């Protein structure tokens, strides 16, 4: 471009990553700090009060009575929950992989340059993005078998959850590719690289690094979507929890325990993502410099 200004590219690499907070807000002054402290104290008190009210209600309703909690001391209970947990992991992993692969394919289709393929990919993406997972599950559960296709319950939950996520992931990948500075493509073109090579060697490797955090939040959504497995009676953690609830008529205690398990699982997924991102992310400085042009 002719009107490029002298946007200064980064000189040397000071690699200290900047937190979003530091970018969006200036450092608080003394008055703001006092205000922040006051708000923190009020906030903590409010949250504590809310927790106290909830606990009191549970207590009044007898939710702490041993019959709701004692069965958690039996190893069979945990073996049962572990079984469900493994089921959840299996479905989550399978739909996660399915959605990653299909999302990538859809993104490539949407940006391939062939008009028909682009429109088709776009329709598919918008369809899977727009339709609720539950509806897709009912489709595989109720409609598909009518056409004589016998699916195991594992696939009746894995396919719809994976398909639903693939539409979103296609758009995430596309955003990542768009985030790679145009200069990278210019340079690759000037070397005589083909479109396919540029996508495979230059765009995708960088795009994936940019979108790792988003990919992970999407994986968390997939994990949460797997709880719909009860619809098709696949024994995931949620389904097993419901069995326990029916056996012991213990609603609150079981849901609390299972909720904690889900939180821990998703927390670990986030940790894993941070680990991967830290290992692969050295490119941010150059990128910031180039996009400022």
């Amino acid at each position: 471009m002719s009107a490029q200004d002298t946007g200064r590219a980064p000189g040397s690499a000071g690699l200290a990553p900047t937190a979003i907070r530091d970018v969006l807000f200036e450092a608080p002054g003394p008055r703001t700090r006092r205000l922040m402290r006051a708000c923190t104290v009020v906030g903590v008190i409010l949250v504590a009060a809310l927790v106290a009210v909830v606990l009191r209600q549970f207590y009044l309703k007898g939710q702490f009575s041993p019959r709701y909690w004692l069965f958690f001391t039996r190893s069979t209970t945990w073996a049962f929950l572990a079984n469900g947990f493994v089921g959840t992991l299996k479905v989550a992993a399978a739909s996660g992989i399915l959605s990653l692969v299909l999302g990538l394919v859809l993104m490539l289709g949407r940006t391939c340059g062939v008009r028909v393929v682009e429109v088709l990919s776009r329709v598919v993406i918008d369809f899977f993005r727009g339709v609720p997972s539950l509806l897709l599950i009912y489709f595989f559960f109720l409609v598909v078998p009518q056409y004589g296709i016998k699916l195991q319950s594992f696939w009746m939950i894995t396919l719809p959850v994976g398909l639903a996520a693939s539409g979103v992931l296609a758009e995430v990948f596309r955003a990542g590719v768009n985030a790679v500075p145009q200069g990278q493509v210019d340079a690759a073109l000037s070397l005589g690289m083909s479109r396919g090579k540029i996508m495979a060697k230059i765009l995708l490797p960088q795009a994936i690094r940019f979108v790792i955090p988003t990919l992970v939040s999407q994986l968390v959504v997939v994990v949460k979507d797997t709880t719909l497995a009860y619809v098709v009676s696949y024994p995931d953690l949620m389904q097993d929890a419901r069995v326990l609830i029916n056996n012991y008529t213990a609603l609150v205690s079981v849901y609390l325990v299972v909720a904690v398990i889900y939180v821990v699982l998703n927390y670990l997924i986030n940790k894993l993502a941070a680990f991967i991102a830290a290992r692969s992310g050295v490119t941010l400085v150059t990128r910031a410099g180039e996009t400022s042009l």
Partner: protein
Amino acid sequence: MTPETIEQTPVIELRHVDKHFGDLHVLKDVSLAVHAGEVVVVVGPSGSGKSTLCRTINRLEPIDGGQILIEGTPLPQEGRALAAMRAEIGMVFQSFNLFAHRTILDNVTMGPVEVLGVPRKEAERDALELLGRVGVREQAAKVPAQLSGGQQQRVAIARALAMHPKVMLFDEPTSALDPEMINEVLEVMVGLAQGGMTMVVVTHEMGFARRVGHRVVFMADGQILEEGTPEAFFTHPQTERARDFIDSIQGH
């Protein structure tokens, strides 16, 4: 200084090239020939179309009218033929555009390995030699973000040279550099020019133009207003626009 190759087919020839960005007419009937071994320096105020001119030569910017010939052959419009032609034209950008996710060595071997099918071992040997020539051989294992701007630009030059191009395009190669890094890049470019490389250089570096430029092309408002030897152009500009421009870049 005029090369004695004047009767030969020019390496690059632009014939009546027109280019619009929407309503903006960025290149107006531009004609220019660059002969083998020639160093043509393109100068002009910001927005004059000089970068666009540079980018049309390997079709990073398509043109709306006129013709571009590379060694007498029209520049292909698309596909493998265009890619093959681009592989023979080296380009260096204002913002370096090194592949941010690959090492310096990979940046230089990428073209030969992926485009020309050179075996990796051979490409790496060549790359290290080139990196040595531009003085950043020790940095081969680092990633671009770990290098200074001047080092990155020298790597970018090595990356382009690794393709053994018949002509090198430089699009404001020192405009994004801190002052103390400009010379290290210019030195590499001077070395190239003295080695007989055909070059089109968009730059404001008058010292460079005077030392190795055979011809200065002055652009304003999408047109070539003046052409001449660096000495003639910088000391006796013919047009008002050129006089203003020279004053403005000498002003500081």
